[in-house]
């Protein structure tokens, strides 16, 4: 049994396995299948300031080794989270991150301020893939100045672990990662979904109500690995890797290329207990290969 703890800035996780936002609900949906205290953390659903109904059905299309989603951040808003969800989850014996989504800098700041006051939430994950309403819909996450602006503003009001989730739909992810690091983010999660689309040749219609949606699952793993590797080599803050992780071997690959922790996303749909199995698998790998702690393999790829 190796030492599985891992550090994200000031925050120590019991192990490097988190569940990804939007793919694990608030953890409650998985209680029948696993023991939440076994995993390093949970990133809960994307939370916006006000309630959102999300996009119309259909919101999902299966693709080769992956899926597209167009959920559109359906959630009941920050205040509802504070009043009705937080009380139910605050005593889980794992680190809970709130995934914060806004369409203006102001919204990001307001949500972060509110969440900052919640004792049992040690961190937030800023989801900067949402369109910036003021700048005409361009996502915060694909522009250095916009990304820097939102992180700077949130950093002022948010005092705990500030993780920022990068969009992969960019020419140069390193440039954006650095801009965000410079504004004081504590860690970076890499990557969110890739923008994709699906069409039904029979009906000649797009499958998603929104035409395009976010691609996730093993199909994107090679891209995610590359981006985590690039970012981890360019910044000093810890990187949390995700994108297509289906098992412990995949998770270990992300650790090897430089991730200090990983998130499990779409895989939760196929096996709702997979995150615990990944914890066990990493443990076994460390033992089998004579490593005493996770940190020994973080960035341990041999070139």
């Amino acid at each position, binding site marked *: 049994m190796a030492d599985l703890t891992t550090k994200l800035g000031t925050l120590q996780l019991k192990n490097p396995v988190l569940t990804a936002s939007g793919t694990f609900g608030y953890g409650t949906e998985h209680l029948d299948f696993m023991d939440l205290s076994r995993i390093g953390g949970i990133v809960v659903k994307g939370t916006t300031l006000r309630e959102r109904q999300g996009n119309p*059905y*259909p919101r999902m299309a*299966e*693709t080769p080794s992956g*899926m597209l*989603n167009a959920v559109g951040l359906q959630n009941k808003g920050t205040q509802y989270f504070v009043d009705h969800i937080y009380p139910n989850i605050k005593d889980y014996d794992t680190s809970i991150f709130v995934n914060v989504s806004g369409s203006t800098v102001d919204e990001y700041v307001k949500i972060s301020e509110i969440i900052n006051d919640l004792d049992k939430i040690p961190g937030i994950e800023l989801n900067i893939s949402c369109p910036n309403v003021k700048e005409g819909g361009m996502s915060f996450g694909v522009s250095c100045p916009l990304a820097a602006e939102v992180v700077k503003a949130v950093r002022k009001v948010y005092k705990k672990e500030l993780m920022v989730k990068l969009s992969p739909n960019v020419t140069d992810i390193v440039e954006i990662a650095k801009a965000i690091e410079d504004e004081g983010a504590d860690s970076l999660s890499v990557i969110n979904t890739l923008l994709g689309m699906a069409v039904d040749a029979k009906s000649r219609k797009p499958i998603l109500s929104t035409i395009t949606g976010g691609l996730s699952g093993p199909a994107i793993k090679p891209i995610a690995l590359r981006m985590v590797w690039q970012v981890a080599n360019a910044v000093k803050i810890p990187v949390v890797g995700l994108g297509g992780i289906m098992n412990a071997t995949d998770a270990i690959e992300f650790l090897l290329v430089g991730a200090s922790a990983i998130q499990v996303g779409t895989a*939760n749909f*196929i096996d709702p207990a997979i995150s615990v199995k990944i914890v066990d698998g990493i443990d076994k790998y460390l033992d089998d290969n004579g490593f005493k702690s996770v940190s020994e393999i973080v960035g341990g790829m041999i070139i």
Partner: protein
Amino acid sequence: MKKFILDLTVVENQRLNYQYVLLKLTHKDKLPLILPGQFAQIRVDGSPETFLRRPISINFVDTERNELWLLIQVVGPGTRRMAEMKIGETLNMIVPLGNSFSAPNSLDARIALIGGGVGVAPLLMFGEWLHRFGYTCNFMIGARSKVDLLQLDELSKYGEVYTTTEDGTYGEKGFITQHSLLNTPDFDCIYTCGPTPMMKAVARYAQENNIFCEASLENMMACGFGTCLCCVTETDKGNLCVCTEGPVFNVTNLKWQI
């Protein structure tokens, strides 16, 4: 209800016709309690095109034999692979998922279970429950042609069976919503499962005649247990997940254009 991830073993694979198969499965331990209308999320191994699990209704539970039945309509790679399962092979499923049909509010209720295509799947199990608890029910099953009518023998164990076929090869000719039995609208409760246009027609009939009506929806699902929020349907309470708040809905709550 507590959900389980189980490996069930195929004990029988009965080909019903060119595109339907009845799979009977068992488990070494006692199967968990499953309510009529609930479904399972099935992992399809060995098919490169089936990344996600496939939702399939529970067709029947034979508690004596500890058997669970699935009625499969082959429409794509996932259902094809299920239909090819051999005796002794195992199928991994998350079960039971979703809500269930609601009980009629009186034992005297005049009940119609209206199904089309693979929509008969949950109705068999519900019919057996109703029968077991002393209700009397009528099955109304529509299909394109005689060969597409499924499990009529099984259904008839638990109630009267009425049928229509579009080509008139069996039962009355036409759609099931045109069946003469519906001419005098004296049902108290209607439960329906089948193609959406059929369920909408049934819902319209029920609403026009002020009849309690529940429909079992078949939205596309990624998880099946409430985390992904992909399977929503619009209701008077906003977007609700079909996998947890459904699959069974009272049609008056649905924002169907009917």
